[in-house]
């Protein structure tokens, strides 16, 4: 058995989801290689080589891979697929973009968002916004699996795998072209892997209020900032803050929901948090049904009090 993990990375750094996907790969058993497909991605490859339990790291580089365009990543992974029984991909926004393309090129189904490896061919995955769990068995000879990072503890550092350069697949001429990117660099922890997350909802009423209320509380706690869909749709927070069924899935030690009602689509993204705190003026808001600690009240008074109590 040999498993290829496709790394989540930014060229300059390895994403935390990679070590968690390696942990899932270990549950399958066999040799584990990591592919870093990027451009100028040596630092990410070196970081991957330090993960415990990795046989080798494959580094493929090209301009198209630098932006992780789906067509380029797919063709490179498919060119390497012959040597592997399973391909594991973190269910990050980049992974979700190219993984099904890889699966279809290999004529297999994708096993999506795996939260538990029961055996090398049997997996548990959430469906219906996490309101049901499906146990599926795959009879495909080669398995393409996306892994929900929050469901696995990252493997530790301590390895020293060799880094091998492999060829990026040549462009086939029918791929999307990269035009540009607007990426906001933040000093806050990354939402998907943060220990504490503070999220704001529609109650904020404006982007200014979101900045004024949610961000200082997050910074006081060293937390990442999240938001409900309603807050993102209304432009109070950027799109990649959205927590939920169709946004990011988080499972921090502490999740604080401020002015969020707790729709099932939101709960799907945070109900595996260790401790949930809800601040909402409506005592019947569904968020209280999953919250360990709830404060019924106006956030305009509760949040300042909380800031003061944190000292």
């Amino acid at each position: 058995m040999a498993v290829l993990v496709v790394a989540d990375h930014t060229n300059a750094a390895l994403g935390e989801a990679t070590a968690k996907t390696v942990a899932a790969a270990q549950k399958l058993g066999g040799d584990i290689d990591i592919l870093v497909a990027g451009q100028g991605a040596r630092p990410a490859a070196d970081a991957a080589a330090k993960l415990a339990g990795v046989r080798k790291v494959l580094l493929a580089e090209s301009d198209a891979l630098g932006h992780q365009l789906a067509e380029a990543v797919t063709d490179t992974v498919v060119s390497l697929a012959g040597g592997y029984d399973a391909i594991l991909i973190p269910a990050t926004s980049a992974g979700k973009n190219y993984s099904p393309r890889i699966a279809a090129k290999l004529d297999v189904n994708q096993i999506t968002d795996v939260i538990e490896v029961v055996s090398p061919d049997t997996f548990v995955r959430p469906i219906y916004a996490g309101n049901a769990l499906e146990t599926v068995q795959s009879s495909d000879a080669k398995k393409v699996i996306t892994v929900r990072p929050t469901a696995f503890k990252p493997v530790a550092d301590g390895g020293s795998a060799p880094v091998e350069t492999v060829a990026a697949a040549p462009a086939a001429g029918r791929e999307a072209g990269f035009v540009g990117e607007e990426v906001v660099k933040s000093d806050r922890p990354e939402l998907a892997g943060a220990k504490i997350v503070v999220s704001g909802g529609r109650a904020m009423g404006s982007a200014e209020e979101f900045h004024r209320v949610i961000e200082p509380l997050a910074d006081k706690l060293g937390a990442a900032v999240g938001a409900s869909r309603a807050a993102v749709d209304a432009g109070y927070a950027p799109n990649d803050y959205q927590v939920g069924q169709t946004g990011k899935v988080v499972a921090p030690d502490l999740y604080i929901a401020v002015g969020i009602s707790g729709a099932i689509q939101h709960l799907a993204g945070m109900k595996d948090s260790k401790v949930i705190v809800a601040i909402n003026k409506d005592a019947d808001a569904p968020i209280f049904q999953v919250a360990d600690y709830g404060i019924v009240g106006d956030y305009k008074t509760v949040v300042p009090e909380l800031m003061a109590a944190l000292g």
Partner: protein
Amino acid sequence: MKVLVPVKRVIDYNVKVRVKPDQTGVDLANVKMSMNPFDEIATEEAVRMKEKGVATEVIAVSIGPVQAQETIRTALAMGADRGILIQTDVDVDPLAVAKLLKAVIAEENPDLVVMGKQAIDGDNNAVGQMLAALLDWPQATFASKIEVADGKASVTREIDGGLQTLEVSLPAVITADLRLNEPRYASLPNIMKAKKKEIAIKTAADYGVDVASKLKVLKVTEPPKRSAGVKVENAAELVAKLKTEAGVL
């Protein structure tokens, strides 16, 4: 320009899903079914392309039971021109859906496929990418903005950390994210008009696609339940509890 929009009939997003006691699936008897919300967004986008004169024809395709005709009618009432139903009672998996759509595309030759990024039942987020792979077409997923001109589409995508813009030459597959648009409600006259629009009824066999899945569902179970905790009086009490009882601060 011809635009194809796949639409799926799913459990309405407001319905509380219940797992069947025999663990064979979720209970779909007597629950409200609707068009997958992301497919509504895709339909809206295609109809707007037609209204702007960018698209000439919008075709809605659904794969599902006989009732999926209603889902197609919804798309027709929103402004799609005609529909195709590939009727099946099997729960078709994403790869087989992509193969069926590929077969439809071979007959219809659309210039663009606009579809939802994910269906809210299976939550796979896979068919669009799979279809693009099978056709060897470029893909642009999670779109929040699409501009079509001169045989190309410029697509703004929602990614980690912000937005990315790609240019794809047509034909291409684009999948819709939540912020692409706000779908309209069909007006009564348009609902009436939609009744007269044509829906072709087909089967998977007509397209020579085997819909038997290699993914076998062994069981469907309830997720572990989270129980409600306590209400605290004020912020000071909360902080004390988070420090001592919960140990997370």
